[in-house]
């Protein structure tokens, strides 16, 4: 447990949050992957004793404020995903990449499903089928996210 490790984790989360609001061209906007969720899942799997439900909840609140959604909408999904990722971390760690991607896909879909329920509950017009492409993009991106964050973790000896 060193202070430097905390800074590194916080920095990756900040970058993920930044990528959630970075301006994209109009056609690409509906396809923005769930960067924060991916980063959170990685840290939950790699360091389950340090990153967990609390981190997920806090990140979710920040994301809600940042993107102007209902306060708690992302917090709900992210804390659930963090809980599942911490529970399953020992299993997911030993999977090969493609199998990991599938497990991540399930987690991403769960987060999306909860966001959809919230949107439905407050009577917003539900988004179309394109909504379900986002977790697939996230799952396809997973190997790169995993390798990048693993390198970051090893380089800066975060443990």
């Amino acid at each position, binding site marked *: 447990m060193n202070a430097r490790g905390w800074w590194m984790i916080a920095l990756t989360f*900040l970058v993920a*949050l*930044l990528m*959630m*609001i*970075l*301006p*994209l061209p*109009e056609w690409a*906007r*509906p396809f*923005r992957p769930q960067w924060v969720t991916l980063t959170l899942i990685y840290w939950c799997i790699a360091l389950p004793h340090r990153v967990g*439900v*609390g981190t*997920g*909840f806090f990140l*979710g*609140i*920040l994301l809600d*404020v*940042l*993107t*102007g*959604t*209902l*306060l*708690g*909408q992302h*917090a*709900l999904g992210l*804390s*659930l995903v963090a*809980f599942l990722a911490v529970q399953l971390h020992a299993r997911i760690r030993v999977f090969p990449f493609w199998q990991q991607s599938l497990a991540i896909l399930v987690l991403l879909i769960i987060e999306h499903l909860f966001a959809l329920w*919230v*949107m439905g509950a*407050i009577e*917003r*017009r539900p*988004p179309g089928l394109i909504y379900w492409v986002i977790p697939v993009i996230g799952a396809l991106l997973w190997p790169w996210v995993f390798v990048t964050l693993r390198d970051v973790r090893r380089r800066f000896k975060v443990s």
Partner: protein
Amino acid sequence: MLAVALSLVLMVLDHRFAHLQQLRSALAFVTYPLQVLADLPVTASLWLQEVTSSRSELLTQNEELRAQNLKLSAELQKFESLQAENIRLRNLLDASYKVGDRVLIAELSAVDLDPYKQQVVINKGAASGVYEGQAVLDADAVMGQIIQVTPFSSTVLLITDPSHSIPVQVLRSGLRTIAVGSGRVNALDLPYLPTNSDIREGDLLVTSGLGGKFPSGYPVARVTRVDRAPDNAFALISAEPAAHLDRSREVLVVWSVTPPSKPLDESDNEAPAAGQTSEAEATQDNTEDTQ
């Protein structure tokens, strides 16, 4: 599971009551640097463009702006006399009406928010006196209203968001109704007009000023489609916002001069009346001069 319960409670509170606005504003203060960072590439490129633009470009632009300025001031002359006339006529009718709104120019931040909500961030906040519920315009028409204020930035809900409604009036017939956002950036719905109402394609909708959020008389949208199905009590009407919701970068934040919800008392009425009579006299003088 505490987190789940907590987020559920937060969502209910946020949806039903307004108490969480302060918490949100406080947290928005934390996330503000992120927004600045996300906006940085666009701001930097604009700045670079400005710095590297050539002299001839600037000259042409200057010339264009001069021409435009001349045209606008010519129009303004006409507008001023019309305004004075309007105030005089309204005085005769004993109707209280104050023309003249204070505006503040703000710039959009290049920040993408939730793609399922129509909202944008501008770079002026409470430090400039911006408050919640204030109307926001672009050069052409009404864009939306402010829903969240932090010291240096604020969030604008566009008129096309499905949760946004704006009281409007058909300019041609004076018919009043409500325009509801459709969720698409180029369309508003007018769901509350019966099939036999006097509205056509191409009609301009302006703010009616009812409800007190938006100052009256600003253009909102142009009717694009009127569908009168005989078996339906209400006509299906859609309109296209006149503001460039997806293109404008400069916006105007408006302070409406009349506080609408509070009844006007005597002292409030006195001051403008005095101003109005003097203006009316001034216009009379002008007409005498021309005669």
